[in-house]
């Protein structure tokens, strides 16, 4: 009897306590499947390519046989990643959840700046929820590449994942993962060869490593 009462009291206290204090619900989070990092004009630029959940789950109506438009990528700039996070928090209603990121796009400019490259790796490493199996690529202009994918109605992250997963038997540039970047940088102080993406006539093209 005593145990039952104790359990009931604890349960009641938990119920009262948990009202509104629980974790952020899934529908209140933004899930970018990919994002890019660039460094230009003495500032970092991060573009988040959010998942088009309605489109990919078939819930979005399509009119006249046309592809639905993807969600607009979100662009943020700042002198450091803390500032970028602040700008996101100040302007967006959804909690940023990087736990589903499948691809990260680095600009070639960033790879040629050792200090900023190291800061970027440190920032990525501090995102505990970010998986180290996210694929990484390089390109000249991340905004163009992401826009090319988004114009098809599919999010950039899904597009890139599809390139690797939907045709497993075909030859294509070896995928480079985020964990390998850390491994190369911290142990050998080198930058590995990145597979390259480019936007040619509105289409994304995957090239061998550079």
């Amino acid at each position, binding site marked *: 009897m005593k145990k039952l009462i104790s359990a009931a009291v*604890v349960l009641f206290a938990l119920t009262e*306590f948990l009202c509104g*204090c*629980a974790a952020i619900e899934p529908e209140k989070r933004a899930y970018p499947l990919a994002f890019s990092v660039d460094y230009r004009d003495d500032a970092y630029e991060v573009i988040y390519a959010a998942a088009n959940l309605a489109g990919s789950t078939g819930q979005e109506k399509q009119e006249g046989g046309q592809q639905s438009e993807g969600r607009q990528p979100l662009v943020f700039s700042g002198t450091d990643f803390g500032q970028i996070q602040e700008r996101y928090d100040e302007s967006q209603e959804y909690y940023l*959840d990087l736990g589903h990121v499948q691809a990260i796009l680095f600009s070639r400019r960033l790879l040629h700046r050792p200090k900023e490259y190291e800061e970027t790796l440190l920032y990525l*490493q501090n995102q*505990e929820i970010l*998986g180290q199996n996210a694929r990484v690529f390089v390109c000249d202009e991340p905004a163009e590449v992401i826009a090319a994918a988004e114009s098809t109605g599919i999010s950039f992250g899904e597009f890139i994942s599809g390139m690797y*997963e939907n045709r497993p038997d075909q030859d294509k540039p070896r995928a480079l993962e985020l964990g390998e970047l850390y491994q190369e940088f911290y*142990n050998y102080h080198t930058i590995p060869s990145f597979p390259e993406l480019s936007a040619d006539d509105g289409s994304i093209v995957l090239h061998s490593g550079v």
Partner: protein
Amino acid sequence: MFSDNDRISGIQLRRQIAVGLTGAFLLILTKESALFGRSGFLGLLCGFGGLLLYLLVLVHASASYRAPELLLGRTGGAILRLFYLSYLVLTGSFLLAEATAMVRTYLMPGSQGLTAAVLLLAVSLLGTGSDVQRRGRMGEASYPLLMLGFLVMLAVAAGAVNSDLLDAAPALDGGDTLQGAYAYYGACMILSVVPFLLNRVQEEHIFSHMARAMAAVTLITGSALLILLGIFGYEGLVQQKTPILKLMSRVMLPGGFLDRFDIIWIAFLLFSLLFGLGTVLFYGRTIGEFGTFTKGGYVLALLMLIGALVPWGRADIRSFYGTALQWFYTPALTVVPIFMWLYGKWRKMG
């Protein structure tokens, strides 16, 4: 099927120890830089050797722990209990803080620390129980699945090991090896509270069971450290905040049917952590409840919650627990059982 005599078997004791410690050791010791590299691995093995001697002392001293007040007097007994309780409060707070951080990052992002900590504590208090036989049965039943899960996960992760990174680890160093040995030995001080329970273990070969439990824990921890070294490299490992959690995000199951494999790993870790938290609470009740005072478990839980969440200046319990363990509790918890054993023998002879 089970006799209701408030006692557990040696197998149940063994499995409880393994289930309660493996998760905590994997989460926490894989962040301990003293255990990285060749010296760290050798240190771990040496620490295990020292632990075996310590376990012998604990078993021999257990008679003195049955009723410390009879041996040390009322005041001495109370001081002894308070000493062990202070260690349990600190260790429990530390463990709760680590588990809370993991849960808030991977399972409940955006949640309040207090919410996650209260949930974890409530599950540990209510779920793992205060009844010694219930805990024994729970440990006995969950041991095969949990240990198999850990071994399978590590085996899958081992496929991603790069032998070049193993070869590139720093050369053996005597000083680093000793540091690693002391670090591992210190982590095992949680076993110092087991003598309070040993009179309720119906088994003659208690040392063998405890040694085998710790051998399993050491094997899994050592394997994980080697695999981490082979995947991240020594310098990469030093940079990681929680390498064991990152480890599984590097691994993909064949077929790619699970996008994030690490969630299964986290589930196993969390179960073991919760059992470990429950173990701390159980021993807190065992040590803290004597005479007419029977609320020790709840007081301990409250102190653990406060210790886990209250900031200490700009730091928290995780910043200084290692220092307190290294400089005070490890030497003290080594000396006290030796004293209890020898003093108990002397009093018996006298």
